[in-house]
């Protein structure tokens, strides 16, 4: 049976170990899912082909309030600039569109929308999204890769006490004496 491994790496503080653990699972024919908080923290890392990386920020972005915000703040203005920017105005509207996103949309998103969203949304949203990934993955091996992942791991183990869990692949696999 194919080994299913879930690596919790929500804190992104031990990236090298995570990348190597994930590569080892793939190399030995298993399936591995790495759960991360944000792809931005991992942009310098290269996961081995076959490693499934699930980004909680991206998952949360699919929720309705964030989709509406993106439509209002980014998509609609882009369409408007495109409609206006034909012919000789094309270059000017392209630059204006970029400036709008940089100077207005990004700032409104960061300074106004996100704080309000985080204040109003249920604090359990990221937790529930993470737990959904855990359920979907149906892992038989859980690797806890950093401190930020420990609370989620404890909740998972409360629900599935028989699940094999450890703080790194080398400490889960019975190692032959070197």
């Amino acid at each position, binding site marked *: 049976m194919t080994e299913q491994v879930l690596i919790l790496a929500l804190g992104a503080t031990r990236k090298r170990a995570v990348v190597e653990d994930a590569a080892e699972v793939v190399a030995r024919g298993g399936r591995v899912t790495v759960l991360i908080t944000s792809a931005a923290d991992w942009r310098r890392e290269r996961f081995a082909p076959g490693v499934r990386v699930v980004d909680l920020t991206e998952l949360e972005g699919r929720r309705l309030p964030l989709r509406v915000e993106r439509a209002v703040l980014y998509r609609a203005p882009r369409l408007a600039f495109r409609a206006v920017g034909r012919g000789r105005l094309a270059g000017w509207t392209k630059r204006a569109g970029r400036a709008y996103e940089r100077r207005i949309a990004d700032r409104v998103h960061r300074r106004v929308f996100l704080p309000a969203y985080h204040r109003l949304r249920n604090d359990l949203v990221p937790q529930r999204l993470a737990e959904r990934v855990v359920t979907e993955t149906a892992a038989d091996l859980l690797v806890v890769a950093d401190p930020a992942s*420990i*609370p*989620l791991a404890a909740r998972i*183990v409360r629900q599935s006490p028989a699940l094999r869990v450890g703080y790194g692949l*080398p*400490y889960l696999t019975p*190692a032959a*004496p*070197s």
Partner: protein
Amino acid sequence: MSGPANVAIVTPWYPTRQRPFLGAFVQAMVEATAPGHDRVRLYHCEEWGHRLPPGTSDAVDQGYRELIAHAVHPGRTVGGAELVHLPVPLPVTTDYAAIARRHEETLRSVLGGQPIDAPVVHAHVGLPGGWAALRNARPDARVFVTEHATFLDLVLAQPEARAMYEELLQRCAGVFAVGEAVRRPLVEAFPQHADRVGYLPNPISFEQQRAAPVTALRRWLFVGGLIPRKGVRWLLEAFASCRARDPELTLTFVGEGELRGQLQQRAEELGVADGLTFTGAVPPDRALALMREHDLLVHPSRFETFGMTVVEAVAAGLPVLVTRCGGPEETLAGVEDAAAELVDVEEGSEALIAGYWRLRERFDRLDLAGAQRELAARYSYPAVARAHDRVWFSAGDSVAGAVQAGLGGRIDD
């Protein structure tokens, strides 16, 4: 994997996938000493620093306690030793007393409140390793500590940490430094305990030989962190200068660090980028293999407590160009002419450049095999294992004996 061990080893530093270099000398010590005993158990208390808000930090601690029974699995490591790997999650801090107490508590929680079941406990790094070992050892256990820390001055500058270190010195059976650079600040800080601070060097493997001896000093090698303390900027400048006279020179940087980007940029400016290789961090075995594929180790560090890389290089049949930065002048004592060129620590590349040409000029007169034999007598696995056994199981004042032996230059005389 329960029950008593002959010896327990407690360490915050040990190679992992995240940091494959950290604590390679502890791994070497385990590999050297464990085969001589029925059961050696290593507790690797790996620090997992974080910057989480207090509420989340509390949840981490609570979750950690819940996971102990599920997530901490004894395994095996080098030399047949048992390995218990336990992360120590803690908020990032420079409060060494707080760090040591966290190690103590985490080890205790993993032990289920029971003491470490071994008559001898050997810890690495006074704070936190020694403290965690002392507070979790059996009342009848003899606790020893090997100090390696290059940041000992910072530890001793904090009143609470200093008081804890003094308690450690009072209560343990002996503290060992890997060289005078570590022993001196300890003895200066605690002169009343000078007789309790001895020497025990790190073991080095002399087993693997290179395929062919060095015939010219052209392939330079650096092994270590690409950080200011290692003097890598001056190394690059020296390399560029020497390469202007001999275009066949190459330089390999083995290691990772904050200066990598700057070094690459400077190499472009100096026009020597085509002669440079950056391998990044590699496991210890790979670093040793690379030593056997190069002609010269250049080690321009500003400060080293022992300088393990330098001895490893001689063991690999390499001559070394090294600064007098604390450890190396002790470890290479007696073999300087045979295998090394020592230069002063300077904020510049001139000493390294001059040192390189001097070494190259007298290359035919080096005696690398003789240097290997001499250093093997001091630092080989069997030599260092015997030294550990003497201090662990001798009835007398083993620490004072180790001090004398260390001063004599050979621990197995």
